[in-house]
């Protein structure tokens, strides 16, 4: 009887939106880390800047395709409704995407920038006036972009959490869960891209930086998910009933085995195993490529599954039909 109003396109969009937020955040952070005023993670910052805008741009495209009338999407920008998370989100998303593209532009090398402009007809003089070097703005753009990247990362959770009719979503922990998952996916995607870029082999300190970042984000995520379940169990009956979806219900295996174990605990274990000797035993960080690849891939897999579980299970949860589940 109950049908899903939001499907896979929304899951993919929520994942890609979060991925961009995480990429921008990690890249922006890398931009700020210097030793003796010299950037030590410039390669990480550049890779992140080059990747960050694309997932959210594709995701926004999917979001528009998912609409009943896709060509009416402009109506989102004719109104501002502060009570609607979707209205706030569509503005946040647009501003963030623009900032991410400007940030990408700031990280282009001179020859890359010239190559792009060489493809634009010479008669388009107004466009060619944009052919300027803004690499000195990198730190400023990153600073302006941070709150927007956090905003995009958290808004996808608020979008679901603000729905009082769905007890599975309607807790104030979902927003943070999505944010930390987004940040963790972003650093994992960045690590994956650095590892796969054969032209500029990744250096050990860069792998270590991204792995450390990811350990922090996964830990934060883990300690939101556990309270989410504990709070839910101690909450009102409707929330408790909604949690049966992942505690014995149809989403139990995908949540515990595929998301929590494979998508969160295994990559966390791999990353801690990699970091442990260099932090506690004073040995050099070796950074096995295969291990890092596996961990990064699993984190992305887990990040996608988290959205999948929440979008689908949340829509099943409700105040008056939950009896049918048992």
């Amino acid at each position: 009887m109950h049908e899903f109003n939001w499907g896979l396109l929304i899951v993919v969009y929520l994942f890609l939106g979060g991925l961009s937020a995480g990429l921008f955040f990690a890249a922006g952070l890398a931009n700020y880390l210097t030793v003796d005023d010299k950037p030590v993670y410039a390669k990480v910052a550049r890779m992140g800047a080059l990747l960050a805008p694309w997932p959210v741009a594709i995701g926004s495209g999917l979001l528009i395709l998912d609409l009943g009338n896709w060509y009416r999407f402009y109506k989102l920008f004719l109104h501002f409704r502060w009570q609607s998370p979707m209205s706030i989100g569509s503005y946040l998303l647009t501003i963030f995407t623009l900032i991410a593209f400007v940030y990408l532009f700031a990280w282009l090398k001179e020859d890359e920038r010239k190559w792009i402009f060489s493809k634009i007809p010479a008669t388009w003089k107004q466009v060619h006036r944009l052919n300027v070097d803004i690499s000195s703005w990198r730190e400023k753009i990153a600073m302006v972009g941070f709150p927007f990247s956090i905003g995009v990362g958290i808004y996808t959770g608020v979008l679901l959490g603000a729905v009082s009719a769905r007890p599975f979503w309607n807790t104030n922990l979902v927003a943070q869960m999505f944010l930390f998952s987004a940040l963790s996916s972003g650093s994992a995607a960045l690590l994956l891209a650095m590892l796969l870029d054969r032209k500029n082999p990744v250096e050990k300190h860069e792998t270590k930086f991204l792995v450390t970042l990811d350990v922090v984000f996964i830990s934060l995520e883990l300690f939101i998910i556990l309270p989410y379940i504990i709070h839910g169990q101690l909450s009102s009956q409707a929330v408790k009933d909604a949690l049966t979806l992942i505690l014995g219900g149809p989403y139990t295996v995908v949540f515990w085995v595929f998301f929590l174990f494979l998508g969160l605990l295994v990559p966390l274990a791999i990353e801690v195993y990699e970091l442990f000797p260099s932090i506690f035993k004073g040995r050099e960080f070796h950074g096995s490529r295969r291990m890092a690849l596996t961990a990064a891939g699993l984190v992305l897999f887990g990040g996608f599954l988290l959205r999948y579980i929440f979008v689908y299970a949340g829509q099943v949860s409700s105040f008056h039909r939950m009896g049918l589940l048992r």
Partner: protein
Amino acid sequence: MAIKKKRYALVIDSRKCINCKACVVACKAENKVPVGNFRNRINEERKGEYPKLSINFEPEQCHHCADPSCVRVCPTGASWQRKDGIVLVNYDECIGCRYCMVACPYDARYFNEEEGVVDKCTFCSHRVDKGDIPACVETCPSKVRVFGDLEDPTARIHELLSTRRYRVKEPQTGNGPQLYYLL
């Protein structure tokens, strides 16, 4: 005479319901609801085992809530509420994001695939504005439904809600539903 405020609501005496579905058919015919979609429905609840058993029918549709979550979450303002409480969709503004469907605690809305917009019970506002009553109310053979203005002290609905015990569904969502089920 001062202009009186109106607040339309529906009282449902579900013990009188015989599950004939005349209300469902009347609504489909009146509002040209697409095949496969419904603006109202009759929930069935079965209990017990033979020979001790009971069956309960409970008509349901949009509750035209006092503080509707569908209106709150709509990003374009396509979902809106009239001063008399009727919750409607402005089809020209609806982009078909279906956020309102997700936000409705009563699953009262449906997606019109052909038009790409969300649709729902309108309390037959086109009839109500002419002084008529909604099609489902008019057609019900066992007089389950009583439609009226809560602000009108002479209305039958006023009398029923003053003298009978009733409940509303899922008041804990904070939506302030306006379908009153007599006990």
